[in-house]
């Protein structure tokens, strides 16, 4: 365990490379499925759901980095977080583009009507829009420009984005009473947020 506590920068670099490839696999799988005619009878539905799932997975993993770092003492984990966050954004862009392209064929007005009229799309859309400034301010230069304090404040939007994303998924599944997965997501995120609050409380006490 101690060996994992103090990884050399080179080792972290390798780990990051491996993680990059792993995080790209769901996308590669979709492309391969497309070529192999494995997307099923309704490929658009498959892609929409798959990219939506992976967006939520990556958002949860991103949110888990800090609690995991605190629990394990593996401080190098923080160096993987930006990439994980950007992969969340990558998959949500795919998710949104599938909707915008194949459901609305780039008809902005029609899409807008859908977004306004249907609450489950409204919350999903808000979550997507809120992720844009986070992705846009992910570079070191932007962190410097904003200043660490403001940057941190902005990126607390994650605490809003993830519940909105889960609500989007929840309402999508609610019509058929299939709530096992949304409940699992909600539980995981609640635990992660509670852990954060706990660590915050602890560090206040010590300082």
């Amino acid at each position, binding site marked *: 365990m101690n060996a994992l506590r103090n990884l050399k920068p080179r080792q972290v670099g390798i780990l990051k490379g491996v993680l990059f490839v792993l995080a790209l696999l769901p996308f590669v799988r979709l492309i391969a499925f497309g070529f*192999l005619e494995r997307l099923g009878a309704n490929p658009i539905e498959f892609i929409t759901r798959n990219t939506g799932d992976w967006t939520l997975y990556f958002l949860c993993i991103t949110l888990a980095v800090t609690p995991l770092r605190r629990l394990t003492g593996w401080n190098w984990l923080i160096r993987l977080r930006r990439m994980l966050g950007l992969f969340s954004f990558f998959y949500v862009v795919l998710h949104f583009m599938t909707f915008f392209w194949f459901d609305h064929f780039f008809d902005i007005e029609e899409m807008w009507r859908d977004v306004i009229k249907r609450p489950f799309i409204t919350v999903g859309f808000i979550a997507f829009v809120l992720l844009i400034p986070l992705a846009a301010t992910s570079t070191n230069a932007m962190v410097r420009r904003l200043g660490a304090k403001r940057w941190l404040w902005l990126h607390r939007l994650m605490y809003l984005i993830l519940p909105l994303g889960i609500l989007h998924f929840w309402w999508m599944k609610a019509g058929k*009473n299939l709530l096992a997965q949304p409940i699992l997501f909600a539980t995981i995120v609640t635990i992660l947020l509670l852990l954060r609050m706990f660590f915050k409380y602890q560090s206040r006490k010590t300082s």
Partner: protein
Amino acid sequence: MFIKRQLRNIDVPPSSEITPRALFESRRDFMRHVAVGSIAGGALLETMTQPVLAQTPGAQKLAAKANSAYVVMDKQTSFKDASSYNNFYEFGTDKGDPAQHAGTLKTRPWTIAIEGEVKKPLTLDIEALLKLAPLEERIYRLRCVEGWSMVIPWIGYSLSELIKKAEPTGSAKYIEFVTLDDKKQMPGVYERVLQWPYTEGLRLDEANHPLTLLTVGMYGEVLPNQNGAPVRVVVPWKYGFKSAKSIVKIRFLKEQPKTAWNVSAPHEYGFYSNVNPNVDHPRWSQASERRIGEDGFLARKRKTLMFNGYSEVAPLYAGMDLKKFF
């Protein structure tokens, strides 16, 4: 009606003249192997091989005479898509579940009990049911409430033939279909998604409409289990869930029956559930639909037609506010 009359004179290939399934599937397999060979290595391959279908396609042929009054000029959905992309929650809630899990369904022996407001309550064996009237092949559009559609050659006869035999009493106003709910054969019945058994219903005049098909086969064969074997109804002007599968009981009633999806989500699924592009589902528009398989990847969705294009049923709803009775 005008369109239908025109169509009578057009030659439509019966499904038996379309490329035999075994042949085109072996072609596809070949293509797939070529594609796989040129793309990926063994480990990746493992996760991508096709799941085994519960029922091997190409089972039992079923002779039926094509009824030229009921054809659709659109391209037929492939048997593969129609038998692998199903909503049949008794076998699981994913579209692929029924094809994978419906192998446990035993379709012989099978009986249908006919009860309620009838002069002759009776229990019909499936073999007797198959001989009750001449089998016809009819090509219908199928529009799912979820926004996708297919074109399927069904085999069966008008439900009215069976209703005639049962002789409903004057007080019979509705008909209810009850689906099998055997946990041993249907793993999905453990899930609390819907109330079991699955029930559906029609007004008696809807049930008597010649379009309403008591269905025992498709694509020239007996129904695959995942499509509702051994006997189901197909009501082509209503959303797919109205067409109850694997029926074990038909009841004639004075009052409107409780139907599965209506009980589960009354604001989303009405009793009538006629295909209607002007009445949206609360969570999505019903104005358009995605035709499975046919439209290709980049194609636009097609406009949904009132009553799924079966305008001859419109008189059944004369004077009704279809926004209220959705």
